[in-house]
């Protein structure tokens, strides 16, 4: 429950909204009451002690498979989720939302994606029907909380970043407002693993080398039945396990890997250099250092670094370098 202590930037307004969402008055010893008490106590704090600005990327394949992966995870935890999970219309219901499988229904496609602020922030930006019971459901799924500032960038064809609001970093197809589904993501994108969305958020609690469990609102649409009218839309909430892809992740991996002093110092030195360039706004140059890092790990993988650790560091370094060479301008500078 570390996230409860890190709610400082959520003011009284958030708590009032939360109370509005939890329309009934909870009993004193009920889990809801204890949760609420925790939030209020947390809300009195200020800046999180171990907040960390972290970078995440999503590929079309991540998004398309997300409902199924989340369904698998939620079903496995259904014993603890209780009534927060159920079956509805041939899909898994989580809180009040239903995330239909995109792999099972090739006609359904994603047109909007929003990364949500966590158990407390999520209900504030989704529709009222989805918000009910969402805080406790997300808490039971160990969902991470993040705080502003946050930003989102996309290079996915026919997608745009939405104007930033607190508790949500959003992306939508360019024709989302009019119901034009050009660029929408469906089952045919299941093998497209090239990152299309980059998000930088201020995580309230550092995940270290683990993945962060992040709340994501996904809007899916069915094909339009009438010319000029948008297809039927459904928004649902799921929790995606995402690896941070940044210098901090590489530092954490180096710290967690059994290494000799010389190798450890060398790898940290490369990361320090990358950080220096990053601090000066030279991301592509930092990306080059990160590739040097990956190369050095590869060269030491059979002698000084155990293969499983080397694989983790190389994969994460490649992803981190790619995240720094994300936009067209960055990519040009990286090549």
């Amino acid at each position, binding site marked *: 429950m570390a996230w409860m202590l890190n709610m400082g930037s959520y003011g009284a307004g958030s708590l009032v909204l939360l109370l509005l969402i939890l329309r009934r008055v909870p009993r004193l010893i009920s889990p809801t009451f204890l949760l609420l008490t925790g939030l209020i106590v947390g809300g009195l704090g200020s800046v999180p002690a171990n907040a960390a600005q972290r970078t995440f990327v999503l590929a079309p394949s991540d998004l398309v498979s997300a409902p*199924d*992966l989340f*369904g*698998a*995870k939620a*079903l*496995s*935890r*259904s*014993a603890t989720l209780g009534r927060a*999970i*159920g*079956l509805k219309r*041939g*899909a*898994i219901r989580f809180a009040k939302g239903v995330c*239909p*499988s995109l*792999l*099972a*229904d090739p006609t359904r496609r994603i047109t909007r994606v929003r990364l949500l602020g966590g158990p407390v922030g999520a209900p504030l930006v989704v529709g009222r029907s989805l918000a009910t019971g969402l805080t406790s459901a997300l808490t039971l799924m160990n969902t991470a909380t993040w705080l502003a500032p946050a930003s989102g960038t996309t290079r996915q064809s026919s997608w745009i970043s939405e104007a930033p609001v607190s508790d949500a970093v959003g992306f939508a197809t360019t024709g989302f407002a009019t119901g034009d589904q050009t660029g929408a993501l469906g089952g045919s994108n299941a*093998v497209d*693993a*090239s990152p299309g969305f980059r998000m930088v958020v201020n995580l309230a609690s550092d995940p270290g080398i683990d993945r962060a469990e992040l709340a994501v609102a996904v809007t899916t649409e069915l094909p339009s039945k009438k010319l000029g009218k948008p297809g039927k839309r459904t928004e649902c909430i799921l929790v995606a396990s995402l690896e941070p892809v940044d210098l901090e992740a590489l530092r954490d991996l180096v710290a967690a890997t059994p290494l000799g002093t010389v190798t450890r110092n*060398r790898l940290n030195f490369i990361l320090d*250099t990358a950080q220096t360039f990053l601090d*000066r706004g*030279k991301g592509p140059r930092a990306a*080059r250092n990160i*590739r*040097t890092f*990956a*190369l050095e790990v*590869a*060269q030491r*993988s*059979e002698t000084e670094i155990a*293969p499983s650790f080397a*694989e983790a560091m*190389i*994969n994460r370094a*490649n992803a981190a*370098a*790619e995240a720094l*060479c994300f936009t067209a301008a960055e*990519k040009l500078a*990286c*090549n």
Partner: protein
Amino acid sequence: MQLIACIAAIVTVLAIAQPARADLMTFQMTVGDALASVGETNAFLVSIGKNARGLKLVPGGTKFAGITCAGFGDVYKLGSVTVLDGPAAFAERVTTKKGKDAALLATAFGLAGLTPWVPPATEAESDRQLWAATQVSPGVKFATESLDNTGTNDGLLDASSSAGIFRFRAQVPPTAAAGASYRFLVELVGRTASVDSGLVAFGRQRCFTFVDLVPVDVSVLDRLVNESLEDAQVRNGLASRVALLKTALLRRDFVTALDIMAYIVGHLIARSPEHAIPAAARRVVTGVFDVRRGLDFRPATAECGNGTRETGEACDGTDLGGFTCAGLGYASGTLTCEPSCLLNFGNCVALPVCGNGVIEINEECDDGAQNSNTAPDGCRTSCKRSFCGDGVIDIFEDCEGSDFGDDVRNCKDLGYEGGTLKCDPEYCEYDDERCDEGD
């Protein structure tokens, strides 16, 4: 005429009966794969809606066709894993309700895109103690004797053993895309831990799932290199390395094989994104590590030093697997086996020729006519890889001696106010310690 018609009919029948092309591939399923498959299959069953008629949620999973899939890995510890050949297996494995449950399961799993394969699976082994593999109809079963032995819980597996491996080889059709996974139907059986040496009855649960596996064979890597990489120079360069890797693996020269794999990974990192798009480079690197995992496998029964060469061993004592120095392409000499069960080529005599395009003993690289002392990252004419101090600024070098490259001449070019820029002689990187940050 009747005879001709008869022959024609036989030829037609034989043509129809001719099985589609199948490759013998090696698969490694981890305990983690098996346990995770429960949730993934449950989610799949939910997603197919009416095709999984009667499916219900139960705490921790689902109940469908009389079979409860829940709590594997925590409540129910894994006792057996059987890889089945396809939905037809349900008729034999599920005999309740006059075949109705089997039919329901066959319908549902028929939609999962299972890989058709023909038993028997060969070389089935596990690296878990107390686990053994047996051929069953229709598939291959890995099981621990503790599954039916109430007196012990030894061998039962939970999430803490997720790295454990079940390995087998099976004839499977080629995939459409390089590096794609095969989906196998699996039967899991678990049981709760017994207490009081079996005085308290244990619970038992059976569950059908599917597991997606990518083969760990070098042929997959070969396809990945040839089909993923667009730059012909990078593709051809790595294809020749993969050919060398195949030879090394055939010889069970694991030391050379590991060196080549490290080279391939390093080469891709150095060439991406300029000459290999990151997604393609990532696929090939994953392929390398898959092959690496295949090499790491050691069956629980294998014991280096027992005089018999087993899976994961290049040799054992005097059992050299029939290899000799001459047979491995050396001029002469005596091949021996090291205590670590790796072949020792130290006494093999070879006549390496730098520049013949073949990496031979004491050579780090050999690109034939491409060997160069001036090309960045090239193989040098001494058949040594490029290195810091060779006078050439390689891709991951900033500088060499007093040569700082075309873009940078001094500290100011790196964003400093001034000062003296040096080149780190060990790593050929900018040494900006004497650069002035300014105010």
